[in-house]
């Protein structure tokens, strides 16, 4: 099972390297989002600095939707879903493999956005462990919940509009928690940041378990 998950994850990453959609399109899009926020929220008024955590995570969320659409769009073509069903791999293994590959891709995205935020918005990370924990749990949450809805909408022709519509409300608590956690991590406020990490951890665990459990009907019928 782990072997199968690793196989799927490796295949996804290799696909990404080969097609360069992530690096070629999504990363520039993410940086573009940062720029758009700067245009919209006048940099001279100090809004950007205060809003940095939120803008970072909104940028991550929008870019994640693109990454997810690509990741599952590929599986929906050329009868690959049929081939996956015939392969005999456990659906939960396929799910975990896809989540693992997504985590890697999202991590790269977040590093780039983090650099962008430090450069453009003059952010100063204070508590690195807290920031990393928040980012890790939030990334896992996005990948897990996103994989469920990504697989669900894979075969729909209206996939491009339906996936954000489904996923973004679901990820609202992730956005709230990650942003608050980052606020603490960037400003160095008193405690409380770790409770957000705990909530994110609960979210991630819940959706990893739910996704692994639901992937069999997803693979069969959706």
């Amino acid at each position: 099972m782990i072997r199968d998950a690793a196989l799927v994850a490796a295949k996804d990453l290799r696909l990404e390297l080969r097609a360069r959609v992530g690096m070629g399109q999504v990363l520039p899009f993410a940086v573009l989002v940062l720029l758009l926020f700067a245009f919209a929220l006048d940099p001279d008024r100090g809004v950007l600095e205060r809003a940095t955590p939120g803008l970072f995570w909104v940028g991550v969320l929008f870019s994640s939707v693109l990454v997810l659409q690509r990741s599952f769009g590929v599986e929906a073509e050329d009868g690959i879903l049929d081939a996956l069903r015939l392969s005999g791999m456990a659906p939960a293994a396929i799910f975990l493999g896809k989540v693992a590959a997504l985590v890697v891709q999202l991590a790269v995205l977040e590093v780039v956005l983090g650099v962008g935020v430090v450069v453009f918005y003059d952010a100063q990370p204070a508590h690195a462990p807290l920031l990393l924990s928040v980012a890790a749990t939030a990334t896992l949450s996005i990948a897990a919940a996103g994989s469920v809805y990504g697989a669900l909408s894979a075969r729909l022709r209206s996939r491009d509009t339906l996936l954000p519509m489904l996923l973004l409300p679901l990820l609202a608590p992730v956005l709230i928690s990650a942003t608050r956690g980052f606020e603490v991590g960037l400003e160095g406020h008193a405690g409380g940041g770790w409770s957000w990490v705990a909530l994110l951890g609960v979210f991630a665990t819940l959706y990893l378990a739910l996704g692994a459990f639901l992937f069999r009907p997803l693979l069969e019928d959706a």
Partner: protein
Amino acid sequence: MIRTRPNPPKNFPSTGSTYRRRCLVPDVGATVPLGRSAGRVDGPDRPPALAPIVRLRSAVALLGRFPALAGVDLDVGRGEILLLRGPNGAGKTTLLRVCAGLVPVTSGTATVLGEDLVRDRTAVRRRVGLLGHATHLYQDLTVAENVSFWARASGSTVEEGRAALERLGVARRLWDLPVHALSAGQRRRTSFAAMVCRRPELWLLDEPHAGLDREGRDIVDGLMVEAASVGATVVFASHELDRATGVAHRSVTVEGGVVQGGLLAGDAVPAGRGS
């Protein structure tokens, strides 16, 4: 050399006639071949203990609300090469997919490789190989990467995948090309190789000759015969009747979601093979 799971080849009486007579089908349940006693499904030479590899009785399969299969009766014996003929839209593709466990059977019975498809159709999937119309390949990955992924996903090894590619005549210089850069025929051969290296017990091929040149078609014919000779069973749909009847042990006609001549009978005339 194509290896299948070790099964001793059975002595199978050839029943390769092409049934052209219409069977009377008053309703879904009662398929009575003309001239045969009702309900008799095994040829007289076959020991009763040997169950057919594929056994469908009054199988109905719906695609949405459309009955693609409207009451199919079919037996396929081990080591048999069965040809499905019929017009477009007759249900050949759906029949193959039902046998692969991909399409649910809504009524009737369906047993493939001993697994009851009505109860759990996922169990049989590992043991069959399906060559469909879609390529089942990732367009952006290379030939070698695709075959090695699908081989390992099915429990085979990368070496077997490579051997299959060679057997299918996919030139080595193509192995590092992404699939989208290949011609349609080369893609077909790659898909075939990905199926072959799984060593399935039941081969389900949807128009295997389509898109291949003469050399490719010869390879495919050779593979089918080889597979049957080591105990695998081959069911394929084809419009290439000249070539197909030369390879097939038996052929049935699929029309209107029903199979004619699907049941095995003892006194059928063997088809000319290679003649």
